[in-house]
């Protein structure tokens, strides 16, 4: 009788393992969705100039002004990537966790973050303007050094701030697309 029990247990363990193994990659994550046009408008601006190099230099300068370090670039493709470490402590969240779970729970609160920025410049189709598109991502760690969250940043204010600085840097008015 006991042997049968053991067999059943083993059977279920393997079944579970099998199911976990199959629980796999979702479909359709490389399909453009309706939100992508909205995001493009948020992330993209056009400048009335044909001097791509000037724009790219200004982009690198602005990223440094905002405290980013440049990680990689390829001028011929109009590409600059940069990242920045920053504090991610949220007093409200710390208080809430302390209230609900005490000192141990506080260690799970957001503590630090790395923000990644990637900028692409490209001549417009008519060749008279330069389109700039920036995307931001961030990874948030808690006080134990574990990753709490990974996300794309879709906050309009952040993009606006970037383009305000960029416009100032190149003394040109940014035209919304």
């Amino acid at each position, binding site marked *: 009788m006991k042997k049968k029990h053991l067999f059943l247990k083993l059977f279920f363990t393997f079944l579970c393992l099998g199911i976990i193994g199959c629980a*796999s*990659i*979702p*479909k*359709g*994550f*490389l*399909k*453009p969705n309706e939100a*992508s046009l909205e*995001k*493009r408008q948020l*992330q993209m601006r056009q400048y009335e100039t044909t001097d791509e190099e000037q724009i790219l230099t200004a982009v690198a300068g602005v990223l440094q002004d905002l405290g980013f370090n440049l990680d*990689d670039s*390829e001028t*011929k*493709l*109009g*590409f600059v*990537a940069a990242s920045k470490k920053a504090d991610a402590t949220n007093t409200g969240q710390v208080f809430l966790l302390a209230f609900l779970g005490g000192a141990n729970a506080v260690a799970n609160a957001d503590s630090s973050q790395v923000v*990644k920025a*990637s900028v*692409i410049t*490209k001549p417009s189709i008519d060749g008279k303007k330069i389109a700039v*598109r920036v*995307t*931001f*991502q961030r990874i948030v760690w808690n006080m134990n050094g574990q990753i709490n969250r*990974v*996300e*794309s940043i879709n906050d309009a204010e952040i993009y606006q701030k970037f383009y305000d600085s960029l416009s100032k840097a190149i003394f040109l008015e940014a035209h919304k697309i």
Partner: protein
Amino acid sequence: MKKLIKYCGISVILFYIAVLSGCATTAVKVFETNESQVKLRSMQTRAFDTIDKQKMMQTVISTMQDLEFVIDKADLTLGSISGSKFLGYAVVTMTVNVRPRSEKQLLVRANAQYGIESVEDVATYQDFFTALEKAIFLTAQQVD
């Protein structure tokens, strides 16, 4: 006492087996794929009737950005572009390679990873090439 020693012996042997087999399998897993090399290559590759590598790469970058990827690396000489995007807690990374196929055609190869797994699904790659086709106004041709 004898019984105890016997059990200890057995557990030590089991432990060794676990450790040794652990080492062997993880190292082998580096090159592991589920699909055959030919099949994988065919689902990840398309040919386009253009030789403008720079324009093709810029279009690939735009398409990836539309798909919410953040571009991490790009190199015109190598023709490679790498980007990443977040899906919930999972990180999707994708590398796209653009290289000349003949005097009239460019070859575009994309390969994606979802977390620690390689994406080996035909439909997923087809979605990407459909989006790329629309962006560059050219037909993506299947390569044998």
